[in-house]
């Protein structure tokens, strides 16, 4: 998900970079004072550890492996504001030391992996937690990754430099990461269970500044807004992208749908016959997301460690 330089239009990189700075400024203010004292080292060391943890490979059926990302886990452990700052350090170090992800697009990468992933993960966690804790943790990991990937896909799709349409990128990247998200959800849950058992004090409620109903309303508003806006993005990108006639986009999408069909996807066509293609993408996206969530929930359950002594 690390976007290198050359993939995004400069104005998109700049815009999203500014958005990241705005959010991080709020995060710094919200964690008021916490950062000047002993917290900066705490965050720094934790960030370094998350970076290392991202190199932990996990086997998935089929012989390949996935790795842990950690945004949602950090949010649950540190609270969203500190987690956003720690993940920003991770993403920045990855670009500035290892060349993972570009320099000019750093703001964009921070936005998807440190801002969206953390806050979405945390919001999902807070909303679901009153009903079922393990499900909340799993869903946080899954949603964090998936929405982060969708964000990256929208940035890429909206960029003229990257010739694919938003819908295409969303379908491919989103589809893939919604699957990867299951792994992230599962490993987030396993690590959480371990912490809950050994250091429950760390997960104790840190007097929430916002009650979950308000969070639910706000979260719904944000997600709803994004969902409503995403076809508008697609449409806008096409309007701007006059090098490519509109009818050609259909061919592109068709070709992609073909490629996607080879993935073990749930809705191979990403569209619904007789429905406007944008609405179709939207609906199938939502249905797919819900299905994956349910499957993940069921799949995650046997993974919860038995309470036998380790």
């Amino acid at each position: 998900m690390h976007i290198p330089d050359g993939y995004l239009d400069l104005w998109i990189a700049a815009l999203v970079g500014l958005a990241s700075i705005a959010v991080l400024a709020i995060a710094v203010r919200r964690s008021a004072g916490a950062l000047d004292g002993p917290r900066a080292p705490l965050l720094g060391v934790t960030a370094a550890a998350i970076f290392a943890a991202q190199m932990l490979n996990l086997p998935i059926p089929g012989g390949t492996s996935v790795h842990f990302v950690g945004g949602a886990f950090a949010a649950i452990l540190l609270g969203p504001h500190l987690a956003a700052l720690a993940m920003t350090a991770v993403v920045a170090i990855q670009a500035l030391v290892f060349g993972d992800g570009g320099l000019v697009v750093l703001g964009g990468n921070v936005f998807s992996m440190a801002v969206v992933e953390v806050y979405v993960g945390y919001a999902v966690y807070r909303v679901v937690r009153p009903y079922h804790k393990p499900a909340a943790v799993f869903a946080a990991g899954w949603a964090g990754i998936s929405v982060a990937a969708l964000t990256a896909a929208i940035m890429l799709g909206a960029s003229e430099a990257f010739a694919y349409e938003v819908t295409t990128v969303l379908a491919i990247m989103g589809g893939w990461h919604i699957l990867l998200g299951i792994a992230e959800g599962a490993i987030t849950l396993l690590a959480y269970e371990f912490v809950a058992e050994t250091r429950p004090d760390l997960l104790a409620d840190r007097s929430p500044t916002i009650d979950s109903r308000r969070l639910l309303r706000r979260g719904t508003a944000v997600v709803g807004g994004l969902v409503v806006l995403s076809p508008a993005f697609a449409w806008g990108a096409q309007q701007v992208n006059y090098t490519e006639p509109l009818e050609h986009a259909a061919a592109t999408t068709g070709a992609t749908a073909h490629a996607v069909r080879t993935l073990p996807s749930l809705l191979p066509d990403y569209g619904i016959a007789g429905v406007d293609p944008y609405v179709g993408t939207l609906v199938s996206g939502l249905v797919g997301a819900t299905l994956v969530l349910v499957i993940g929930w069921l799949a995650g359950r046997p993974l919860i460690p038995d309470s036998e002594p380790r």
Partner: protein
Amino acid sequence: MAVNALTARDLSFGYPDGTAALDGLDLTIEAGERVAILGPNGAGKSTLLSLLAGLREPAGGEVSYFETGKSADDLRDRIAHCPQAPVDYLFNATVREDLEYGPAQLGIDRREAEERVDALAAEFALEGLLDKPPFRLSGGEQRRAALAAALSVEPDLLLLDEPVADVDAGHRETVLDALDRRTEAGMTLVVSTPDADLVPQVAHRVVVLDRAGSIVRDGPVRDVLTDGDLLRDVGVSPPQLVEAFQRAELDNPPLTVTDAVERLRDLDDC
């Protein structure tokens, strides 16, 4: 009358996992004193030192410094604390940057800071290591570097947690001599250790903590260290020289090797 460097009143602390480390501890240390905190592993020595250095918030009680009423954070140019694990103390890119860190935070002039770094590097045999990353040093080297870094602010009160735990014999002398020079110049020193043999070399007064983290004895080194039963009770072995002389049923056991040699010569002469 000397001022108190440190006064702790009714100090309590528990860890978030429920471990109660200290409960209602009182301690007063006069400026210029050399005090050892002696106790077995897990007694709460490290916890106590970090509380005395104002690095943890006590659950109850308070600590005041130099009778000023100021908090430890306002006195970081006068109080230094060197933790048990030096690797966590040295968090800069190179040893030189670590030695400069304290002076830089306290706004000390650059030329002055460089002079201090050079002097400390010479004193603690760190000259060849200044440009290495600290975590690439050996345990003993790290310990010396951490001590040098703590001394770079030229504190009036130094709290040292097991300062020679993994230092070899030669450098142990280096460290102890450096501490002697500082205390002769008026620095107050508090050293924690589980090793009674070290106590006479660093302190005049010793405070004994038991496993529950309570003070069971506080007094002049000679009085306390010759009380073998008390020490064994809390789980600390008495100094070897004391043990040897007491088993030989000789009274007034020596605390340092020099004293012991003298005593043995006297015995020989008889």
